[in-house]
């Protein structure tokens, strides 16, 4: 009977291992609050934002949220600068929070970029001068009441009462905090959790457009279902990698892949099975490729970019790409360098398909937001060429490109918010014809952004592309660079086409008007132009900065 009892017992207990017999002593964990302070500040600001939503009177929420967001993000940036100045970007970089979060050059660089993007995005989120005043209330780009049925009675009531969804600010902050952890995650669990932490608020933000709400909700549903699907695949990949290595920490997996880890019997058994590693690695990489919108995981991008409120689109296009490329770099450079002979050819393929498909489909687009979406897909391909270089200059060139790309993107989408007609933003390209006559300054600014996207010299886009292609060519990927240049040429075609359209076509009689923005949006656009020109004319300082920040901790 006692044998049977023991057997029953074993159903819900695991046999204690020999070296952890008796009561296993749990080492007291510790958390380096100071080193994690940037993320914690953003999280704190977000929680504070939720409290404002809960307790502040409706009229005070907008100002309160804006203040909390701006102050929180600025403080986070200050903390990041302080950490970098303390040498965490180089000599003192290490892994904090029990191996969960890396504090090193790429992490700090990317976090700084994300925080600045978020700061600019906050400005565009808070813009209230574009839409006409509704029932005596200034309104922003977000729905009066997200839960109300579009066009229904409840919505009209909400509009009349002047409701605004000020929750977008805490949602933005939560997303930002998740994005800050994402490229710094040093184990797969943190990677997965931070992925969800930044994705879930984005799904919600997508659904909150004030105009064209059906499209906005549709974008949200699509993004959500596909995003959940991709994160499930990513999670299964994590499970397989865990099965292979017996650990989820980046360093631990890398040791096992390199064969330097201490082999336990179980490990000896699983490491014999390379399929676990290869399939798991591919699935995790797929999850990240989904976020960076690489072909064939890109199909959500145009639909979601088009449907989402434009400030959100700008934020997503810029920040998600930064965060996801950061995570991809860390994964491929820290965890899987031992199997780069396996993934490099595959990534070659992905990069080529992404560049070519992104550029080609963009040619026939007729909607500005979709055009920019395809352009962002093509840019993901260009960035991938830098990732493939597997060299320090590969890392720094990708970091630099991300900065260049993200601010131009933010500025570009901010310009899109200004061109409006009776139905809100006039995103159909035909309506942009002759914009250069009607509003030369705005058209010129947009032209600068387009030229930067196209990679014309003296713009940030050129410096970035140049750095990435150079790194790739030095890494031996010359054919890839050739494909990159060809697809740049194709891409340049449709960027220039828009410029020609704006400046050399007659404006339509019922064309859109250009809204006069508040200083908030003007700042965002001006920053975009400034970054475009500064990085285009004098990239060296930032290339050096990215070069200094280009070493991962392991």
């Amino acid at each position: 009977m006692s044998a049977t009892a023991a057997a029953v017992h074993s159903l819900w207990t695991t046999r204690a291992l020999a070296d952890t017999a008796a009561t296993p002593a749990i080492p007291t964990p510790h958390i380096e609050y100071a080193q994690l302070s940037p993320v914690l500040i953003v999280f704190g600001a977000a929680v504070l934002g939720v409290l404002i939503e809960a307790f502040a009177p409706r009229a005070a929420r907008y100002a309160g949220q804006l203040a909390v967001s701006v102050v929180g993000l600025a403080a986070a940036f200050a903390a990041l600068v302080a950490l970098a100045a303390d040498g965490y970007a180089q000599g003192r970089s290490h892994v904090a929070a029990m191996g969960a979060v890396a504090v090193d050059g790429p992490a700090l660089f990317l976090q700084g970029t994300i925080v600045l993007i978020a700061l600019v995005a906050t400005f565009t989120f808070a813009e209230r001068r574009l839409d006409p005043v509704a029932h005596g209330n200034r309104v922003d780009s977000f729905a009066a009441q997200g839960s109300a049925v579009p066009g229904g009675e409840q919505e009209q009531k909400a509009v009349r009462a002047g409701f605004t969804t000020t929750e977008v600010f805490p949602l933005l902050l939560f997303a930002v905090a998740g994005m800050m952890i994402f490229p710094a995650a040093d184990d797969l669990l943190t990677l997965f959790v931070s992925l969800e932490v930044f994705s879930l608020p984005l799904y919600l933000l997508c659904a909150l457009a004030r105009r064209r709400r059906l499209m906005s909700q549709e974008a949200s549903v699509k993004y959500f279902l596909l995003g959940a699907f991709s994160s499930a695949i990513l999670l299964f990949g994590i499970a397989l990698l865990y099965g292979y290595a017996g650990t989820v920490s980046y360093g631990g997996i890398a040791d096992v892949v390199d064969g330097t880890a201490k082999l336990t019997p179980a490990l000896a058994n699983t490491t014999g099975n390379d399929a676990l590693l290869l399939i798991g690695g591919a699935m995790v990489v797929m999850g990240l490729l989904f976020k960076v919108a690489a072909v064939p995981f890109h199909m959500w991008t145009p639909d979601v970019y088009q449907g989402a409120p434009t400030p959100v689109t700008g934020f997503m296009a810029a920040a998600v790409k930064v965060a996801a490329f950061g995570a991809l770099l860390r994964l491929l450079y820290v965890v899987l360098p031992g199997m780069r002979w396996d993934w490099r050819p595959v990534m070659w393929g992905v990069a080529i398909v992404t560049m070519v498909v992104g550029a080609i489909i963009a040619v026939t687009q007729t909607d500005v937001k979709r055009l920019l979406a395809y352009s962002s897909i093509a840019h993901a391909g260009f960035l991938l060429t830098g990732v493939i270089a597997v060299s320090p200059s590969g890392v720094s060139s990708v970091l630099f490109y991300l900065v260049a790309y993200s601010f131009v993107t933010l500025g570009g989408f901010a310009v899109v918010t200004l061109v409006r007609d009776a139905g809100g933003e006039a995103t159909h390209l035909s309506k942009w014809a002759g914009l250069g006559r009607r509003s030369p300054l705005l058209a010129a600014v947009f032209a600068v952004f387009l030229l930067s996207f196209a990679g014309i010299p003296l713009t940030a886009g050129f410096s970035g592309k140049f750095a990435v292609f150079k790194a790739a060519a030095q890494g031996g990927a010359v054919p890839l660079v050739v494909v990159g240049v060809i697809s740049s040429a194709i891409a340049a075609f449709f960027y220039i086409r828009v410029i020609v359209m704006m400046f050399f076509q007659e404006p339509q009689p019922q064309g859109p008007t250009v809204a006069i923005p508040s200083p908030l949006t003007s700042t965002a656009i001006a920053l975009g132009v400034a970054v475009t020109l500064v990085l285009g004319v004098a990239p060296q300082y930032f290339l050096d900065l990215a070069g200094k920040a280009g070493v991962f901790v392991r």
Partner: protein
Amino acid sequence: MNAYAPILVLGGLGAGFAIFSVVMASLTGPKRYNRAKLDAYECGIEPTPQPAGGGRFPIKYYLTAMLFIVFDIEIVFLYPWAVTFDALGLFGLVEMLLFVLTVFVAYAYVWRRGGLEWD
């Protein structure tokens, strides 16, 4: 075979208890039926809802369910902590307090914004 013995034993015990309960109830209990008693039991709502308006549930039902899920699931973190409370010491306590505090912030939001009111 030895490995399956516990399952068999458990299955046997379970089946025995079920049969015993049903048989005993039918033998000893009074038999006064009404409509509510004859209905299948499903969490207090009508098992086959056919209200006016095409058989839709009120949105409140989902709302409550979602709120329940999201607050209920936090227990999953409290439980392991409770088990190793001694070993983790003050650090664990502080961290858990922070965690619970955050959950309470969410609770405060739901409460203030009327998520807990049925009507």
